[in-house]
């Protein structure tokens, strides 16, 4: 093992120990705040500091007691389903709009003000309106994610289209490409890395937003679960929820990054 590898493993471990210390400190000062060991027991089962036998949240994630009481696995699945539904919708709508905005000056002038105004609005601001429209928790969550995800996709797709060099377009002109051939053979290959950057950003934000959205909509989902555990005074489960959400977000980002690299011609053939 070289020194770089040692640094990469030892340094995070040191930080981890420091975090545990701070956490223990907080638990010491704030009454009823779960200690690291309590949280560990709550996650993986065992006997906690009070001497009670506990089944861990993560050691039995698949249980289904009834419609309103399911294991953490099902909560995560529900959240991921909503994120992906909204995300896929945003891709289907956002990429064509992005291509359009990137290719047509008029479209850009027409749409840009609205993109700029709506982009900074917290998606949660839309949530009451969407709840009022759909009267359905799932549809509300999915459409919230859709609104969250669509802006980075539109903006980055348009940016990708604009980055197409005039040289490539000249080649297309000399070969008399039709507009469709221009899109498929030139504009899309150039834009794909940009589109994936947008998608990666979108997915990251969508995963941030879903937790908050589910706290508001209730029902099922990891966000709702965390809020429910707060109401049940299971504070250790909130910490478990935070860590799980973080890990899943991290994995989503890695997977998205790998997919993006696969389609990015600038990263190919550089053996």
């Amino acid at each position, binding site marked *: 093992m070289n020194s770089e590898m040692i640094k990469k493993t030892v340094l995070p471990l040191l930080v981890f120990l420091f975090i545990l210390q701070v956490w223990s400190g907080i638990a010491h000062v704030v009454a009823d705040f779960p200690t690291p060991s309590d949280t560990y027991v709550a996650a993986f089962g065992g006997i906690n500091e009070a001497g009670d036998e506990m089944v861990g949240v993560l050691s039995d994630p698949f249980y289904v007691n009834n419609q309103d009481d399911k294991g953490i696995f099902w909560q995560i699945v529900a959240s991921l389903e909503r994120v992906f539904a909204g995300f896929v919708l945003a891709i289907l709508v956002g990429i064509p709009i992005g291509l359009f905005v990137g290719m047509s000056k008029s479209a850009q002038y027409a749409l840009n003000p609205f993109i700029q105004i709506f982009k900074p609005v917290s998606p949660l601001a839309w949530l009451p309106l969407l709840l009022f429209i759909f009267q359905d928790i799932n549809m509300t969550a999915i459409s919230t994610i859709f609104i969250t995800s669509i802006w980075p996709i539109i903006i980055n797709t348009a940016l990708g289209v604009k980055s197409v060099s005039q040289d490539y377009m000249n080649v297309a002109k000399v070969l008399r490409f039709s507009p469709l051939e221009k899109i498929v053979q030139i504009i899309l*290959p150039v834009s794909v890395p940009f589109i994936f950057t947008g998608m990666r950003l979108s997915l990251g934000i969508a995963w941030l937003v879903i937790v908050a959205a589910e706290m508001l909509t209730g029902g099922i989902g990891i966000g709702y679960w965390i809020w429910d555990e707060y109401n049940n005074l299971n504070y250790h489960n909130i910490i478990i929820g935070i860590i799980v959400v973080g890990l899943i977000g991290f994995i989503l980002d890695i997977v998205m990054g790998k997919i993006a690299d696969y389609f990015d011609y600038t990263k190919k*053939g550089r053996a």
Partner: protein
Amino acid sequence: MSEKFLSLEGIEKRFPIPGKEDYIAVTDVNLEIKKDEIIAIIGHSGCGKSTLLNMISGLDAQTKGAILLENKHVEGPGPERAVVFQNHSLLPWLSVYQNIEMAVKKVMPQLSAPELRDRVEKFISMVNLEHAKDKLPGEISGGMKQRVGIARALSIQPKVLLMDEPFGALDSLTRANLQEHLMRIQQNVKNTVIIITHDIDEAVLLSDRVIMMTNGPEATIGEILEVNLPRPRNRVELQSNPEYIRCREAILSFLYEKFAKDDE
């Protein structure tokens, strides 16, 4: 052969400048180019030589005058006037083979799969790039990229090959190598070629006629020089050839005495 093949008649290009008078880049350009002739257009930067080429390729439209190819008006770009761009303009996500294939496929949709493959491979071997055909443009040298650019342009069987300072971005050894390639190809397959250059040796070495442009604005053809050198030409032997020396001196005197430019 002496009949009109490509003719430029009273070409003018003006660019509107808001709030000011139009900028006239080139004006009153008249030129007749014979079939299979190699023409070099030379001039200082800003003499509108690239503008002129862009009008022949159709990527840019002239504001006055007519361009006729085989007695037909040239309107807009098209594959019968293939362009070799200075920066090669290969699509970086396609391999050498695919870059050429894309062009051939589009221009000759009637070819069967084996015919298509044969044609692409023929032009790859014409520029000696068999070993690199599956490489991406990012993996090959600048000179090789430019050879792919030439192969791509020739593969679509253009009536005129337009080269916009094709070797301008290359070092002088690579440039010489590519000039040799071009002369060898021209020896085997006759093409009508218009080559824009600012290199005097390149102009004399490659062309049958050198078109010398005056300085812009309102640039036009200043002089036309016939290069009466037999082919194949050998760059080393030419150095002492009286005709070569005459041509070089004529261009030098045009560019640095009659139409000298203080700074670029």
